[in-house]
């Protein structure tokens, strides 16, 4: 069997819901050995959040949990108990990476700070994922994903038509901001892992979800910080438009793209005007152009527009819902959706990864059941006897 690129990297995850688990999932799906620590009894809150098939709550059938925890092993451990803390120490002593999302200061108060955890294991990389990071005046502020998204540098009003009424900005779809933090944390984590090449020393990676989101709006944040009174973006030609069967998006910016767009439209008479030959002219006449494009688009389906435009060389795309993406020829020709079989949730197609590494495959496996790997990890890896395990279970440590 082919091996994933991160085979040999050993990771302990003490995370819940989306951000830290997504970070660990990205590593696990490429072959890292990820042990996920869950609270005894309940497990990761994502197990209870759902959605569930037929809306029947079941901790082994939460779509959110199943997606975010592929390829991991699950053990139960109450890391806040004294014995639990000792076991965590033991686990981390053998790991390359610890990914955690405890409130800032909590691990420190349990004697599990980076300084203490890395003393017996100087190569340890520890990634801490929190709303505002480990320092600063907002460090301990309470924040759900919605609150955080709205302090992350919202700049998504481009391409939306004029609003009839003033409404607050809308958050990114699904758990977008949390995924952002998870991806950013995964990049920082691998950076720190690579940083061990020279001295063998690990590092602590402090991830603020707010800063992860800001990093994705960095162009706009910097633009406004340097120029508090900037000229506003001019409306461009194209953007979001309506076809016969829904929305699509087209961006014919550069001259060659505009010319290809006109070919896709059948070289209309109006496009031969002098002002239509330059980008500046088209921007100045955007209001005149728009009705022509709107009328043309209204007679075609999104897919007709998509293929017609793209064949000529115009960047365009239909706005697709989840079902339409799932049925998309291109995604399926690439094997983007992969069927994974879970003993309780059954067989389902999961999005795999956006990258295909030519020699080392994506090695996703279905998510673990709660505590599925207690015996393997505590028994085989750490050497606890069945009696000791039973005792730990009785004390509700595991």
């Amino acid at each position: 069997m082919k091996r994933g690129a991160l085979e040999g990297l050993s990771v302990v995850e003490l995370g819940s819901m989306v951000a830290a688990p997504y970070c660990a999932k990205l590593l696990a799906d490429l072959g890292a050995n990820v042990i996920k620590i869950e609270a005894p009894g309940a497990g990761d809150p994502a197990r209870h959040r759902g959605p569930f098939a037929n809306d029947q709550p079941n901790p082994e059938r939460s779509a959110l949990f199943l997606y975010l925890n592929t390829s991991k092993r699950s053990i139960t451990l109450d890391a806040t108990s004294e014995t639990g803390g000792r076991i965590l120490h033991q686990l981390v002593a053998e790991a390359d990476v610890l990914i955690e999302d405890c409130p800032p200061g909590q691990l420190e108060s349990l004697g599990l700070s980076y300084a203490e955890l890395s003393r017996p294991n100087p190569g340890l990389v520890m990634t801490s994922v929190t709303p505002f990071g480990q320092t600063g005046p907002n460090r301990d502020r309470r924040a759900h994903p919605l609150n955080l998204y709205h302090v992350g540098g919202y700049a998504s009003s481009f391409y939306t038509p004029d609003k009839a009424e003033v409404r607050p900005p809308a958050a990114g779809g699904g758990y977008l901001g949390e995924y952002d933090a998870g991806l950013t944390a995964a990049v920082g984590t691998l950076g720190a892992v690579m940083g061990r090449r020279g001295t063998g020393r690990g590092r602590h990676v402090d991830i603020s979800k707010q800063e992860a989101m800001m990093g994705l709006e960095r162009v706009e944040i910097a633009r406004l910080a340097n120029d508090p009174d900037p000229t506003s973006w001019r409306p461009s030609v194209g953007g979001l438009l309506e076809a016969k069967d829904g929305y699509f998006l087209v961006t014919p910016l550069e001259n060659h793209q505009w010319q290809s767009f006109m070919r896709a439209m059948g070289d209309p008479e109006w496009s031969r005007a002098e002002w239509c030959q330059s980008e500046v002219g088209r921007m100045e006449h955007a209001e005149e152009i728009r009705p022509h494009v709107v009328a043309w688009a209204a007679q075609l389906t999104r897919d007709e527009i998509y293929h017609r435009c793209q064949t000529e060389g115009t960047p365009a795309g239909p706005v697709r819902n989840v079902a339409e993406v799932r049925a998309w020829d291109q995604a399926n020709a690439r094997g983007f959706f992969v069927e994974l079989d879970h003993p309780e949730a059954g067989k389902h197609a999961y999005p795999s990864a956006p990258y295909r590494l030519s020699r080392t495959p994506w090695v996703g496996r279905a998510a673990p059941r709660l505590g599925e790997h207690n015996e393997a990890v505590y028994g085989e890896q750490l050497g606890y006897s069945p009696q000791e395990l039973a005792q730990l279970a009785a004390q509700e440590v595991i």
Partner: protein
Amino acid sequence: MPEHGSQEAPLAGIRVTDFTWAWAGPHGTLLLAMLGAEVIKIESRTRLDHSRVRSIMAGAMNSGPDASTIFNDLNLGKRSLTLNLRREEAREIVRSLVSKSDVVVQNMRPGVLDRLGIGYEELRRIKPDIIMLSSSAVGASGPEKFYGGYAPTFASLSGIADLTGYPDQPPIPLSGSVDLRVGSASAFAVMAALYERDRSGEGQHIDLSSTEVMSCMMGDAFLEYEMCERIPERRGNEDELMAPHGCYHCAGEEQWVSIAVGSEAEWTALRSVLADPELADEAFATPQGRKCERERLDAILVRWTCSRTPAEAAETLQRAGVAALPVLTTASLSQDEHVQQRGVLRRVQHPVVGERIVLGPPWKLAGAEVRGPAPLIGEGNDYVLSEILGLSRPEIEQLQRDGVLD
């Protein structure tokens, strides 16, 4: 200061030959540069990186290729080598540089570099353990591999645009930040391949689809569709379970505070702060009840928020234990006290535009830094040709005269 482990740049000694342009690819190599890789950006005066000349939103906007706000932000700490790739001599320089590189990154349409004789198969002959990442709109295989796009195209094709926005308003295609996510995923994949190369001694080619990056960042929605046989829809700021959950109008124009109540403790805290008798209504006693009656609940919240500033409202609610924060605009973020104390913003001296504010790395990680301003076009020619490739001054001048370095 707590122990932070090693201080040296994590990717010290890694060299990246960077053919990327626009936003997505450059953000990927920006992250690698912040981690300490030496990034050499290959560009040409005959076809400028479009972020040097334009914004997708505003069109042509800069006084010159060295003055672009966008370019100068996305290319901090890189070197610039100008090459006219239509010339065989230029392609020969690429081959020499790749033989001394660890990574090649490119985001031209599939097949372009192959036709120039500097595709992956050719480059691996020169440098067997080279890692090459090719990033494209919808991937380098499949029936639509030649289709192109910008950030909002990827958002539309991936499903995320359809999920973003209000249910009674058009979808929101998110714009430039989508490209930056693509760049982050690229940096991750490159480092995974570097990790593997250190063990196997072999390189590989990475085919990255920008659209798939976004689909993966809403993967739970695909599984919801699979398992629950329903299509998730956009819902503004609402949550499937929580209520209240939204942005509430405050004193002043377009001023909002976000409030989200997820637990009974938070609900009790909210009630105590608002002290509105209507909240005692039995209908609000359970999370399900609050979700059903959310519109009535929202109206009660606004009665309280609308006479307060976002900061006052958030402060009062936070003290009681409610998750509430002012809704910050992109412009106000740089003034935020927490953001300033965390050192998110840095000042960089640029030879043409002077001192500029930029954002630092998105992680607090020892050895990760902004290593300098974005390069002027061709700023690194002498360094690359002479110091890395060992060409003599007359040789470089000859290349210059022949238009190879245009």
